[in-house]
């Protein structure tokens, strides 16, 4: 059995795994393990999803979710980067803000849902408040790690050559920082999707999450599962793209560092 498995390429096994999963899902309601009205068979859900793909309303919802995701992530990334640089570059500020950051960071952003509702209601800003609060810390912490990782000798050399603050940031700090920043953005990207969907589910800001709630309360259970699958594929796509971007940035970085060390 084991010898045979070695011969089969990994991706074939992966496809077999997916087929087995779908088969089990298909069988569960048929056998009667779970009522079909609660868990429709996989074929029905996939057909509904395929049908959804042709609807404008579906793509509008996806667009709304992605808009909140993108804006929230962008605001968090830029503000996290700028504040992280300013705080990280100054040993005084780093120590001065440490306790406050460590206290604010673990606060779950879903705790802000009531505030978002009171302030903005069912608008995009509600989603943005949650997303920015959650992603900001991811980016800020990584940027702080990155700035702390800057080689002291390189920094002092730059200083003694009379580099200005901005030049030091651009030519010394930023190259070291970049992989850390990318990690922060990659972590933030998946957190941002979670909170975009959460805001839509709970607050009712427009997007995929709201459609899921509507489908559920309207009794369109297959439709609900189809939308959930769509949300999952969105997550897979976001993971894939951010991993690709990070790999590009990191490969450039690693190769440069490699040459310097050798």
């Amino acid at each position, binding site marked *: 059995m084991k010898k045979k498995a*070695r011969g089969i390429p990994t991706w074939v*096994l*992966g496809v077999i795994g997916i087929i087995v999963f779908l088969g089990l899902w298909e069988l569960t309601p048929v056998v009667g393990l779970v009522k079909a009205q*609660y*868990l429709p068979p996989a074929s029905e859900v996939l057909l509904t999803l395929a049908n959804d793909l042709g609807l404008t309303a579906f793509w509008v919802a996806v667009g709304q979710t992605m808009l909140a995701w993108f804006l929230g992530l962008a605001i968090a990334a830029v503000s996290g980067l700028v504040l992280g640089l300013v705080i990280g570059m100054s040993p005084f500020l780093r120590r001065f803000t440490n306790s406050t950051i460590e206290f604010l960071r673990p606060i*779950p952003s*879903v705790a802000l849902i009531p505030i978002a509702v*009171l302030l903005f209601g069912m608008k995009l800003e509600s989603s943005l408040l949650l997303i920015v609060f959650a992603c900001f810390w991811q980016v800020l912490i990584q940027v702080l790690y990155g700035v702390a990782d800057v080689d002291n000798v390189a920094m002092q050399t730059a200083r003694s050559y009379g580099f200005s603050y901005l030049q030091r940031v651009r030519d010394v700090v930023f190259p070291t920082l970049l992989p850390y920043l990318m990690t922060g953005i990659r972590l933030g990207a998946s957190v941002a999707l*979670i909170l975009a969907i959460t805001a839509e589910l709970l607050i009712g800001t427009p997007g995929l999450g709201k459609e899921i709630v509507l489908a559920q309360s309207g009794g369109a259970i297959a439709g*609900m599962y189809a939308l959930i699958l769509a949300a999952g594929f969105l997550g897979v796509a976001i993971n894939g793209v951010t991993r690709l971007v990070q790999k590009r940035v990191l490969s450039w970085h690693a190769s440069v560092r490699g040459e310097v060390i050798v």
Partner: protein
Amino acid sequence: MKTLKFIGYLLTLPVILLLWWWVATSGEPNFFVPTPAKLAETFVNTWISERLFTDVLPSVTRLALGVLAAIVLGIALGLAVGLNRTLRALTEPVFEFFRALPPPVLVPVLMLLVGINDGMKIAVIISGCIWPVLLNTIEGVRSIDPVQNETSRSYGISGFNQIRYQILPAATPTIMAGVRQCLSIGLILMVISEMFASSSGLGFSIVQFQRSFAVPEMWSGIVVLGLIGVALSFIFQWCERRVLRWYHGLKEVEHAV
């Protein structure tokens, strides 16, 4: 002098922020933001009461049960899958999909499948938290240095002993990274599952306060959630330091060289 400096760094900014908040709200009353004194008073009145036992403790218990179950299941399944190359290849795409699936969408699904009860809330937490632990365990087991495995084999260490003394320790740094993610997802899911469908619990109370425009009570609930978050992060850091003491020591030695 040194401790004084330490305390100064620790407290100055929080004190400044508190003062700023106090000055900003003490003028004319703001509907959305209570004064610090009012918030502290509401906090004590609202939460240091029977609510502690009817809302906070059940929520925290569900969170603890869900997270612990997710960690145990995740590590056990992860070991089983990670040690078997065929199984790993078979399950990888499906697991990757579930990791990428935003966990809050599981709430409506489990409401249907399990019904609205405590079991559903724990199931939501487990089904959302298990993926980072599971996938990190698989990854941790997979990336073990082959020399270690071969050394184990040539010393005749196998089965339970090999898992207990070689594989688990080698995978722990990666597993702990997964556990950290699992904790923050668990907290989110605890709140969401209660906001969605519940008649008790922290999430429910906070939404209830917001719907009845009891703004200071709502803020005090947010403070409770924040405190739980901070407490969780401290507990995690303490555990990590204990579990990974050897690892951090090793890193220090490597960096020193």
